[in-house]
């Protein structure tokens, strides 16, 4: 040993001996204390605690809190809580669970559907923890079970709150649904603090605001008898109800949207252009969230998840579509603002446009002749915009699209939002390893090609045009408050940015949108009301590029290859109070399919307003 670090000098065992003496005293004291406490527990209180352990019937019974209510902007309740009578078995008290189960099924036919899957936990679970076996039995059967309770050891009935979605499938995508927390969810960080029996939001607002809606479980320490019936409450904690949530959704308008849609697949979303509030959001086909409350059966669940029309998807935020001609407004805004054209610039349309060796067609085969910007928008001339696209180039176009809120999530408070796709040269090189082709810009300029947008993004961009240039954050939630009305959080309108388009240019666009609906040859004629106050834009988005000579008659084309029909509009022209986005999937032409739906919504909205004013 070199002993370089070991300093033998200065080590004085005697000095330490005294210190160690003190430490020995302290250690002895600690041990004495532990032993004394053990003596107290085991000898002094031994008999008493032994008795308690022998009939250790002290159980924890969790009291589930009531989940917060969800209301619409006018205070109408959208989601309420109902009582469900559930049957539980305590394996330890039942002794033989099979026998008791058989007795139970003989007494009353509870139906296979009601049997919960938790039956498997008889073996693995703790013997004194109740296992739920039937959910939501009706009152007659409840009476049978209660009167025979002496023959059914270990069987207990408990009242459990369940969600009641008053509007059923009308609000399914916004509100979402709840279910038991899954083991994979429990493992995630977001769900730290949750317990294995908790009900959590699985979708929609229920999921997004779960932390607020959930409330806090209470519980009781109760003494129960041998059969598991409660005798005595030893103490407990009251549950705290979840917070109530008010949405900006107008339930009546939502209903109007739903009815306007009938059986078609697609989405209609309504926004207030002055604030960004989402007033209605319908996605079709839909589903009934009440199915999930009482445990959905395997077959029904499978049907929902394998349906090719994806009823569980909220198309307004998760659907990504080519915007078609509705995108022309962004192209026009960019071209005006970059000074490439003025409102008077005229371009000749003969029905075709040549780019390299490709020929692009205008939807109107004969062409529009000489047209200025206003007419090009009103009649939705494609050739005009092919030229604008060529002038702008893909990256300039992408820059403006970004300013209008495309290509990234709009930030609505719902899970599963998509961000769409705004292609750039760099993106294509990265994604496909190939350089950008000029002809691809041509497709982009009429909202085809790689471009994908969500209906919500499109609606938001049109709101910015409608209100003179403010891009608002979409606002679904109005406020969150406690059950006694104290405000927890409020969500005032939030301006994301002012789009970089001058007032003058926005007015040119607004006027053109008015013309689309109200001028002769306008593609949005279906919205022409006697007040002549609606502005809008049609769009027909190709799902696949058709060969150039086919006459795309809707009925001849297979459903999944048919065009999507789009319509975006706002009204009234002077001071827009409502903006509507309608997409009918594989519907055909925007003007003839989507516009009538928008029309019904606009009419419905103004009727509603009139009625409300009278009252």
């Amino acid at each position: 040993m070199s002993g370089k670090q070991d300093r033998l000098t200065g080590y004085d065992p005697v000095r330490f001996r005294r210190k160690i003496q003190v430490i020995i005293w302290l250690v002895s004291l600690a041990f004495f204390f532990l032993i004394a406490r053990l003596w107290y527990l085991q000898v002094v209180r031994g008999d008493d605690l032994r008795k308690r352990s022998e009939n250790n019937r002290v159980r924890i019974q969790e009291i589930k809190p009531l989940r917060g209510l969800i209301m619409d902007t006018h205070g109408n309740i959208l989601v309420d809580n109902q009582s469900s009578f559930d049957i539980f078995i305590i394996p330890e008290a039942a002794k033989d669970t099979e026998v008791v189960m058989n007795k139970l099924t003989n007494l009353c036919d509870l139906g296979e559907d009601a049997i919960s899957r938790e039956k498997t936990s008889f073996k693995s679970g703790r013997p004194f923890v109740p296992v739920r076996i039937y959910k939501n039995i009706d009152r007659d059967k409840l009476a049978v079970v209660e009167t025979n309770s002496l023959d059914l050891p270990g069987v207990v009935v408990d009242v459990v709150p369940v969600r009641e979605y008053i509007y059923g499938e009308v609000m399914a995508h916004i509100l979402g649904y709840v279910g038991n927390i899954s083991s994979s969810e429990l493992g995630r960080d977001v769900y730290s603090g949750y317990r294995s029996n908790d009900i959590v939001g699985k979708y929609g607002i229920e999921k997004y605001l779960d932390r607020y809606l959930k409330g806090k479980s209470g519980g009781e320490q109760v003494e129960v008898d041998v059969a598991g019936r409660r005798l005595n409450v030893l103490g407990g904690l009251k549950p705290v109800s979840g917070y109530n949530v008010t949405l900006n959704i107008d339930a009546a308008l939502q209903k109007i949207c739903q009815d306007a849609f009938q059986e078609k697949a697609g989405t209609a979303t309504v926004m207030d252009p002055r604030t960004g509030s989402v007033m209605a959001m319908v996605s079709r086909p839909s589903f009934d969230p009440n199915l999930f409350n009482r445990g959905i059966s395997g077959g029904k669940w499978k049907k929902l998840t394998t349906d090719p029309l994806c009823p569980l998807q909220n198309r307004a935020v998760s659907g990504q579509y080519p915007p078609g001609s509705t995108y022309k407004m962004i192209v026009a805004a960019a071209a005006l603002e970059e000074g490439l054209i003025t409102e008077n610039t005229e371009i000749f349309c003969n029905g075709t446009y040549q780019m390299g060796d490709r020929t692009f067609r205008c939807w109107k085969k004969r062409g529009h002749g000489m047209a200025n910007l206003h007419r090009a928008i009103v009649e939705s001339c494609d050739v005009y915009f092919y030229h604008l696209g060529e002038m702008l180039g893909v990256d300039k176009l992408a820059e403006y699209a970004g300013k209008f809120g495309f290509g990234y999530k709009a930030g609505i408070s719902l899970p599963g939002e998509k961000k769409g796709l705004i292609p750039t040269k760099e993106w294509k090189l990265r994604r496909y390893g190939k350089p950008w082709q000029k002809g691809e810009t041509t497709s982009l300029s009429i909202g085809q090609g790689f471009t994908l947008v969500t209906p919500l993004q499109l609606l938001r961009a049109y709101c910015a045009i409608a209100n003179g240039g403010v891009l608002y954050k979409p606002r679904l939630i109005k406020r969150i408050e406690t059950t006694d009305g104290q405000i927890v959080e409020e969500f005032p309108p939030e301006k994301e940015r002012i789009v970089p388009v001058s007032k003058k240019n926005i007015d040119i666009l607004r006027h053109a949108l008015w013309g689309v609906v109200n001028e002769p040859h306008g593609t949005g004629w279906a919205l022409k009301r006697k007040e002549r106050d609606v502005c809008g834009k049609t769009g027909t988005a190709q799902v696949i590029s058709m060969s150039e000579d086919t006459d795309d008659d809707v009925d001849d084309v297979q459903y999944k290859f048919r065009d999507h029909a789009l319509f975006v509009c706002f009204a009234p022209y002077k001071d827009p109070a409502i903006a509507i986005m309608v997409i009918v999937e594989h519907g055909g032409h925007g003007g003839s399919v989507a516009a009538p739906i928008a029309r019904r919504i606009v009419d419905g909205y103004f009727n509603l307003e009139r009625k409300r004013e009278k009252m």
Partner: protein
Amino acid sequence: MKIDRRLLTHFDWILLGLVLSISGIGILNLYSSGYNLCSGGDLLYVKQMSWVLLGLIIMVIAFSVDYHILIRHAYLIYAFSVLLLLLVFFYGNLTHGSQRWLIIWGFSFQPSELMKLVIVIVLARYFNDNMEKGYRFGNLLALLTILGIPFLLIVRQPDLGTAMFLVILVFCMVVFVGIGRKFLVCFISGSMILTPLCWFLIKDYQRERILTFLNPERDPLGTGYHIIQSIIAIGSGGIWGKGILKGTQTQLRFLPEQQTDFAFSVFAEEWGFLGVSVLMFIFFALILWGLKIVQNSRDYPGALMAFGVTMFVFWGILINIGMVIGVVPVVGIPLPFFSYGGSSMIVLMAGAGLLMNVSMRRFILQP
């Protein structure tokens, strides 16, 4: 290395006997508490036996290598352990919402357990290096750094119990080397600054636990319930105990975490005050024996190291038993040599090895 015959003659059989009897009782207790419980097909007490055997091998290594060599490489060992903690931070395995485990060749290992022993070795080195110069403000900074790095990494896992355990160990050693009053005040105030910092680093459930300890009425359903069930289990054992495999609290699984944190409650229920007294006596003897080794150690670093290890065991006992009888908050500190757990068993065996190391070499003079 030449094996000195005196090493064999001075081998500490008593220490070995004490450690083995505690582990033996622990295994028996596991057999009783978990006889109907399998984890991954293996019976827990069988697994624990293999941990004890592995621990004994580590122990042999720990007493064979002269402790001066360990002291010399203390900083290297420390750096290695910090590295392991960093690995946990980035690649650790998540269980129950905390990241404590590292999986090496199929074994899961808790580097924070290892850190408890390493901090003792590194402090022994540090105090030994600095003892002549006396302790000044600069030392405080160094100490806080040595403690702070693993402390923050462990708090972040989050494992507040183990992190506080490190603070206690460092504190004990600081008091032992006899640092000036001014220094002590600084150390305590330094720790007091660190403590509120923890409050922001720990997770909600831990905050809840501390609040629950301060006011048990807060949570009669979670932690409070565990304590109540533990007290019922211990008390119901009475003087004579219910006998092995007969503890109703245990068998009906009223007791939480019966293999690890609440293993002592199982023992107390089945063996009563009599069994508990025997076990406590062995623990007491172990600590006293450790302190005797400290007293007889031949040099300063040996004494420091032996003292640190002894305190490691002592605080483990005090906190764990204090916890199950409801006088200390529920933190995940296992009962030394007794609770189920590979990492803690191996580290403690290594610690016992270090004690033997110091004990065996007490008569060997340095050249």
